[in-house]
């Protein structure tokens, strides 16, 4: 296992190198002049000399390779560069965004799992019952509605009609409720469908008949066997969702004015703030690779047949 983790961490270096190079290259060939955008954003008149001086200051006149390696050198020392817009360190801006995105992502995931795991299992165990039909309808609606529409509906019911929750309440528990639900409801729709399918697949395996003819209690069959064997798939589904959530939800963060990384990167794209975009992509790549690694390790714990050493 140690060898496997070491190998995967080494792979991470190559993945990050490739991701950073591609992002940098894409930003390089993208149209628009960051120096011009910066000066415009700061309300300064665009004088060709000032613009040239700004380009020089920002290092935009240097060749691509020099710029890339100079940036990469900074990355290795933990310096992702400074924002073109406000000249603040990218790492600080991302960290600030993460302090909003991480609680929102984790709470949305916790709510989605708390709802969809029991409903997915119940729906599979009582397949074709009234309960199953109701859960499936809920899952279908959750899947079909885009999260911005759910957000608007939630605002309408809880903020406008009943005034029980605020629309904007930054960094507070109450403010977290509506964005959490807006993200969790569509996720529930997807999770329920996937968990139900996975549990049904396990319930149809011959070992379940083996357990039943031995008179093993239903509770033990579901929790000790079906859930145990489905957990690999559940972990994969959850892992992928964590990755997506950590990237921040641009729409939800914008609607609720939640200053997470989604909103940060959206603003950076509009302003052609390349260092922020590159830093964001790099951090997301690290998060994805680490989640994948954690998923693989958990797989090995659940299913010892998987031998990563080979």
């Amino acid at each position, binding site marked *: 296992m140690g060898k496997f983790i070491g190998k995967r961490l080494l792979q991470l270096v190559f993945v990050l190198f490739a991701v950073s190079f591609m992002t940098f290259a894409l930003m390089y060939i993208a149209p628009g002049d960051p120096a011009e955008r910066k000066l415009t954003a700061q309300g300064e008149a665009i004088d060709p000399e000032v613009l040239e001086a700004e380009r020089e200051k920002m290092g935009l006149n240097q060749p691509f390779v020099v710029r890339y390696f100079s940036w990469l050198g900074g990355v290795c020392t933990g310096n992702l560069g400074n924002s073109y817009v406000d000249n603040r360190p990218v790492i600080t801006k991302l960290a600030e965004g993460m302090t909003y995105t991480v609680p929102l992502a984790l709470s949305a995931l916790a709510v989605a799992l708390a709802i969809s795991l029991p409903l997915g299992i119940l729906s599979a165990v009582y397949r074709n019952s009234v309960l199953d039909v109701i859960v499936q309808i809920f899952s279908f609606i959750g899947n079909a509605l885009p999260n911005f529409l759910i957000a608007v509906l939630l605002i309408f019911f809880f903020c406008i009609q009943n005034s029980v929750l605020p629309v904007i309440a930054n960094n507070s528990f109450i403010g977290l409720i509506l964005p959490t639900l807006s993200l969790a409801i569509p996720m529930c729709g997807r999770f329920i469908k996937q968990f139900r399918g996975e549990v049904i697949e396990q319930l149809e*395996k*011959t*070992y*379940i*008949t*083996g*357990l*039943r*003819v*031995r*008179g*093993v*209690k*239903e509770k*033990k069959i579901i929790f*000790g*066997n079906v859930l*145990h*064997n489905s957990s690999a798939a559940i972990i994969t589904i959850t892992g992928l969702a964590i990755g997506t959530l950590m990237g921040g939800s641009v729409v939800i963060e914008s609607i609720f004015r939640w200053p997470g990384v989604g909103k940060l990167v959206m603003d950076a794209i509009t302003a052609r703030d390349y260092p922020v975009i590159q830093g964001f992509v790099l951090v997301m790549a690290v998060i994805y690779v680490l989640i994948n690694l954690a998923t693989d390790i958990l797989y090995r714990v*659940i*299913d*010892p*047949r998987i031998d990563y050493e080979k």
Partner: protein
Amino acid sequence: MADEILRVEDLSVSYGKGNMISGVNFTVTKGEIVCFLGESGCGKSTLLKAIMNIPELETVITKGKIIFEGKDITSYSDKEIRSMAGKNIGMVLQHLGGAFNPLRTFEAQFKEALYSHDMEYDFEKVKETFAQLNLPDAERIIKSRPYEMSGGMIQRIAIAMTMILGPELLLCDEPTSALDVTTQKMAMEQLMNIRELLNTTILLVTHNPGIPSMMADKVGVMYAGHLVEYGKTHQVLHSPAHPYTKALIGAIPTFDFKLPKGLEGQPPLNGADMEKCAFSERCPICKEGHCICGNNPYTLKEVCKDHCATCFKRD
């Protein structure tokens, strides 16, 4: 009868649409091994599933009774049936590899089954049972998972599990079909051991007519959902009465470099619900125009003591 353990009375079973078996009658005495023979789809496995009768096996008893240890278990609730499964009536499945959860250790699975019946897990007992079944190194096996074992070992572990749960009646659904010839012999010996050690009654379904001759006290021959012949092994196999049994035994391959006689045609799909004899289309006697099918083609009639058949021609 004092030592009668199972009596099946006029049993008809369906999977929801049309009967799969119909009007089956037989009795089994405690400690007997009874083998059911017949072609694929004749209802042998359905019969065992109906006796087990847990809802997940999907059999629906449409008519008749199953009297187990003097009690009609067809009237039992699902909960009562589940509590009997494993402890009173055990079942060894056809695909033994699938009998255990592939991701959990045998220890966890033994404990789970025993605790479900409020029984204690005692490793010494497991070790002793493993030794009786020629399973060495119980400490290692019990900590292993099914994928680490061979098919033959899994089968013996499944039998060990059954022995520890100690059911009075053991149902074996083609337990040897997935095994090679030498392992088949070992499996048969183990089943005979169970009977010897625990006086367990065994009902076994097989395609292989060689198996009952080796171990069964009684043989039942099934055709298109009907029990057409039932009696002592020696009598059924050596003096078959029903034309189907005769044809079935005639179809056994031998070492004389000749193709077995075989039986032309296929059994009817709705045989269990047919009023006329389901075998009449293939019956050599009917084909010769000397049909002996009576008004009740599915009533077992005595051929001689402990041997009956639904249709036979006295020589």
